[in-house]
């Protein structure tokens, strides 16, 4: 082989390898800057998207629990500080209300052939978000304890109460139930779940007027009160970390708990193999004769910022499409319940998927839901403590919400 040949081959190989580097995603140049919440599923998407970095393409990410407070100011700048913000049902609102993200229809047509229909979050005709995973609170239960108490896994909240009573009566556990009942956001979320399970509507149709002060609201609160009787007396301080600890330590047998925590609950940390091995999941229970699981469905997805250059927008879309691919989903099957086509769900995904298939509702995306959620979190506490009745708590909630909604210009 001559020197010329060698040189040619080497140069060819070099050319090929750099060609491969950018051809992996097909981005010529651009900067991808992601702002997102901080949990494993989102890390997986961003890590995968980082494969697109290379010649003229940079991929950086700021993954923090404080993402929501950063998003609006950071995306309002021109050019925006981040080219994409990962949002959930609840955090999409501020971006839409301030017109900070761009419709993705054209990008999907050109670069997003693998994006399935159910991943597209459409506002009118515009696709504004590509959702990639789903989350919901659903049933976690201890198979062994239920067997010992001689009961089937509960299908309704009435069954849950009966199961709790049986477990307590047989002295298997002092506090068989647990739940994320911490005063504030968590407690309000439990009410939202229960109220939707009862078939309730939060607002009068087409307006921001609250409509929770009714029989369904009272029934939802009464059910929460009955459940709390079987919980550790500290339940009003319990957030997800506490509930996970309760399950892992074997202090509680049944919880309606976040699907995204499944991996952490059953892994080999923080618990014994006996306990972790017998924790099973199922769809969220129904309640009050309702037909849909009493839970709310949540999704996470990526957006593309409006105030950025066309090249950056294109690079961002392509890189994140690469990040949220079936290959990534199947490499991390337990990190989340992926909505991506071609993903093979693991055993922990049943809870979310069954809840979804049985018709559980998504968390309401109306712009004033956050205000009602906050009001609930503060005002139903007195009822849970037994200091006022359910109707008063709901009337108080409506009053607190109305004052805030007036200030925000919704009423």
């Amino acid at each position: 082989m001559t020197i010329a040949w060698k040189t040619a081959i080497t140069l060819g190989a070099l050319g090929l390898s750099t060609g491969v580097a950018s051809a992996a995603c097909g981005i010529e140049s651009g900067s991808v800057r992601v702002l997102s919440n901080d949990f494993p599923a989102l890390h997986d998407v961003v890590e995968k998207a980082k494969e697109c970095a290379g010649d003229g393409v940079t991929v950086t990410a700021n993954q923090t629990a404080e993402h929501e407070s950063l998003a609006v100011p950071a995306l309002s700048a021109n050019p925006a500080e981040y080219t994409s913000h990962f949002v959930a049902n609840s955090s999409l609102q501020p971006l839409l209300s301030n017109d900070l993200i761009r419709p993705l229809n054209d990008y999907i047509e050109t670069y997003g052939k693998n994006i399935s229909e159910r991943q597209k979050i459409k506002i009118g005709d515009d696709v504004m978000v590509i959702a990639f995973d789903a989350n919901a609170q659903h049933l976690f239960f201890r198979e062994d304890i239920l067997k010992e108490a001689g009961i089937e896994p509960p299908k309704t909240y009435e069954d849950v109460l009966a199961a709790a009573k049986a477990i307590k009566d047989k002295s298997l556990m002092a506090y068989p139930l647990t739940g994320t009942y911490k005063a504030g956001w968590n407690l309000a979320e439990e009410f939202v779940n229960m109220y939707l399970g009862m078939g309730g509507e939060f607002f009068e149709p087409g307006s921001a007027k609250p409509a929770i002060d009714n029989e369904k609201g009272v029934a939802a609160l009464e059910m929460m009160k009955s459940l709390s009787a079987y919980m550790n007396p500290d339940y009003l301080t319990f957030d997800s970390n506490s509930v996970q600890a309760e399950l892992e330590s074997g202090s509680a047998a049944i919880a309606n708990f976040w699907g995204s925590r499944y991996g952490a609950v059953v892994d080999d940390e923080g618990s014994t193999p006996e306990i972790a091995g017998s924790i099973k999941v199922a769809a969220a229970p129904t309640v009050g004769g309702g037909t849909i699981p009493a839970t709310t469905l949540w999704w996470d997805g990526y957006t593309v910022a409006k105030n950025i250059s066309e090249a950056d927008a294109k690079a961002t879309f392509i890189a994140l499409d690469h990040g949220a691919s079936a290959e990534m989903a199947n490499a991390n099957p337990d990190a989340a319940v992926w909505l991506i086509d071609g993903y093979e769900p693991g055993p922990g995904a049943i809870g979310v998927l069954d809840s979804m298939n049985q018709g559980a509702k998504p968390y309401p995306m109306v712009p004033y839901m956050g205000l009602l959620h906050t009001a609930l979190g503060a005002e139903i506490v007195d009822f849970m403590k037994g200091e006022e009745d359910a109707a008063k708590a709901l009337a108080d909630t409506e009053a607190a919400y109305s004052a805030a909604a007036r200030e925000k210009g919704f009423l």
Partner: protein
Amino acid sequence: MPHRTFFWFILPSALAMLVFIALPIVSIVVQSLYVEHDRVLVEVENCGPFGCSKEVRVDAAATAELQREEPLGRFNGLATYTNRNHLAFDEIGAAWANAPDIAEFAGEILSLPFYRALSFTLAYTAVVTPFVIVLGFLIALAVNMLPSLLKGPVIFVSLLPMIITPLIGSLVLFWMIDSNGVIGATIQALANDPALSLKASAPLTWITLFVYGIWHSTPFAFVVFYAGLQTVPKDTMESAMIDGASTFERVRFVTLPHLSPLLVFVGLIQLMDNFRVFEPIVGFNAEANATSLSWIIFNDLRGAGTPLFGSAAATSTLTLIGVSILLTPVLIRTWRDFTRKG
């Protein structure tokens, strides 16, 4: 000092105070008088992984147009101050008219967010401040009597509660008083009641927060008083001893009068600090049983996804007024002392 010199001397600090204290206060007061524009709402079809539904949206362009015209929002006067989430005049009027007795009326008022927070804030200030001053003084006296070899280490250990960041300190204690934690389990064993929990009932939560507050702030009072004790005049003390004064009498008639400016100083700082109690409520997850004015401000800004600036500003202004009312007696006293001396 001639007025001219005084003016140049004070100018930098006056400027800094104007920029960093006066202007923000003015801005908060102005903000509290405004609320956001009426949102232009439109109904659109939303679709996602869980199906389609008709939902209401904010018309971003139309709302932005309104905001461009009047960036501050709509003028609302004092209506934010009087609404249910603050002073709640209407609700109090209704409760006064409808409540059968005074206890019912009080219960009704304490279920309103602002008054609930105010009651805890005032109770916290009223309990923690005197305890901190008295305990701090006693510890300072005790440490002052120690042999000098021991003083260093004892002072260091006594200061630890203040060195720990309040949020971390309260989290550590929160876990320790858990029914599985070392303090919580001990209390359960002592009381022989496995269901006893310091987190579950309002009175116990309040007491826990008070104890935390005293634990955290006492080192500050101690350090100030200890420094003051080093300046107590020896000759006065010796003459008191020659006159036959007991230890108690020496403390009462020599040390205390000498330290009285420091007592006022620590009292002032503690009143202000305790009135804006915040971190322990977050650290102890105590929102269910205790909220404070600062916590409401935090909740308005961070609780609802999009911040309620008007609400938060109104509560801030009310907090400011509260602090001024609390400090008035102390300030009047200081002014009298000043004019008497002058």
